[in-house]
């Protein structure tokens, strides 16, 4: 038996998830996602020419493809509620804001997970061609799912901040780009010139990349999981604050 919190959260989740598939946009989105991952893996990284049945190049592209597509999948979440006025309806139903936030977040995350898991044929192909390390494959997918969750939470936050989908997309893109590039040596060199050491390390530790790479090695480290969960929790908490304040101003 579900308690009242999860019960209402589940209703919101269901509605939001179905809303993705109410129009052909979801299918176009998923096809585009798969084509992009496939193109980058097979043509840009030259998967076949490497002559190794290895998924390193395949997983390499996830943060970048998600960077482009997660903000597109989340930009609707709260902006549309506000634009069409259904926010007023939703917030006067006996639903708490955390229920609505988590329900919507999970719906968008599950939608992204479908995209991630639809890439499994690439794995089957690789298994057919050689024998990739099972741990690395599972770790890589766990990393890709957690990473998309962190981006989805950021997208949820930015969609709560505005009633314009394009603005939500752009801000989410910039924040996720920062999370992807923080800690990357060329970027850190710029920061190094003026920032004190602790700040440089602080910025570098925000990056999603080391956590994504360490999961790809097939070791599911609790610290990596904690990192992703913290990003999600922090972004959702931010979205909660934004929505509370929007209401009262």
């Amino acid at each position: 038996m579900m308690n009242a919190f999860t019960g209402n959260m589940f209703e919101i989740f269901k509605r939001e998830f179905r809303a993705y598939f109410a129009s052909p946009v979801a299918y176009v989105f998923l096809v585009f996602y798969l084509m992009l991952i496939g193109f980058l893996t097979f043509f840009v990284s030259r998967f076949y020419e490497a002559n190794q049945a290895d998924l390193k190049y395949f997983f390499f592209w996830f943060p970048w493809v998600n960077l482009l597509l997660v903000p597109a999948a989340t930009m609707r979440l709260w902006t549309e509620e506000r634009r069409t006025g259904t926010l007023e309806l939703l917030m006067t139903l006996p639903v708490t804001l955390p229920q609505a936030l988590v329900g919507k977040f999970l719906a968008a995350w599950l939608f992204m997970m479908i995209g991630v898991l639809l890439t499994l044929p690439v794995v089957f192909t690789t298994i057919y061609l050689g024998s990739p390390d099972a741990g690395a494959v599972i770790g890589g997918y766990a990393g890709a799912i957690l990473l998309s969750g962190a981006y989805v939470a950021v997208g949820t936050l930015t969609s709560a901040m505005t009633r314009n989908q394009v603005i939500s997309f752009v801000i989410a893109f910039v924040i996720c780009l920062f999370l992807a590039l923080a800690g990357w040596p060329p970027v850190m060199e710029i920061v190094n010139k003026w920032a004190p050491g602790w700040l440089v390390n602080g910025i570098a530790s925000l990056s999603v990349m080391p956590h994504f790479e360490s999961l790809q090695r097939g070791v599911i480290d609790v610290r990596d999981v904690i990192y992703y969960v913290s990003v999600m929790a922090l972004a959702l908490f931010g979205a909660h604050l934004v929505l509370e304040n929007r209401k009262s101003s």
Partner: protein
Amino acid sequence: MLEVRQLRKNYGSFEAVKGISFTVKQGEILGFLGPNGAGKSTTMRMVTGFLPPTSGTALIGGHDIVETPIPAKALIGYLPENAPVYPEMTVAGFLDFVAGVRGYCGAERARRVDSAVECCRLGAVRHQMVETLSKGYKQRVCFAQAVLHDPSLLVMDEPTDGLDPNQKHLVRDMIKTMAAEKAIIISTHILEEVEAVCTRAMIINEGRIVAEGTPVELKARHPSGRLDEVFRSLTQGTAEKTTKR
């Protein structure tokens, strides 16, 4: 059923609602009258828990909307201005969602949806997407979601706005049939509507209640005996401010 205590709302330095108090009992239909920007919608949004008041509160069946919003909201049916409904859902799908959030499940949930569809005469469009519906139907879909759980307090913000005369008549009939066992508030700037459906009316201007009484009592306040004259004499000369956002 509803007790509003000293509700106040400031937007920055602008006072939209300046301390409004009133009560509505079961069986009453209270008409909220006032020019655009008078604070009608803001007051309703505070009563229904969408906007937090700057100060003051409202008690719905004894539940404080600020302190215990969930049990209070469970007793309210709300038809917001412009009747927002999720455009990409079907009528039945939308009502089913609302029934789920209202805590109904299984056969009772289906029964609630069926009776709301029947009550608002939505049978013909039951499986149609909301975005393909006409304004009158959309209004009724939103009305159906407001009465689905048989609320003790029904709050409606301009329920007949933009409807044709037949649709207006239908909505008024639906309101009157439900009046006996509910407390109802409707905001409107159509004066004939107050005379047609309300048992009591309140005129609001610049965030304050400027007159209150039965339609007959209000009419007696002007020598002409006409409600529009009373309305004009009480609210005219105030610059129109819009707080609609």
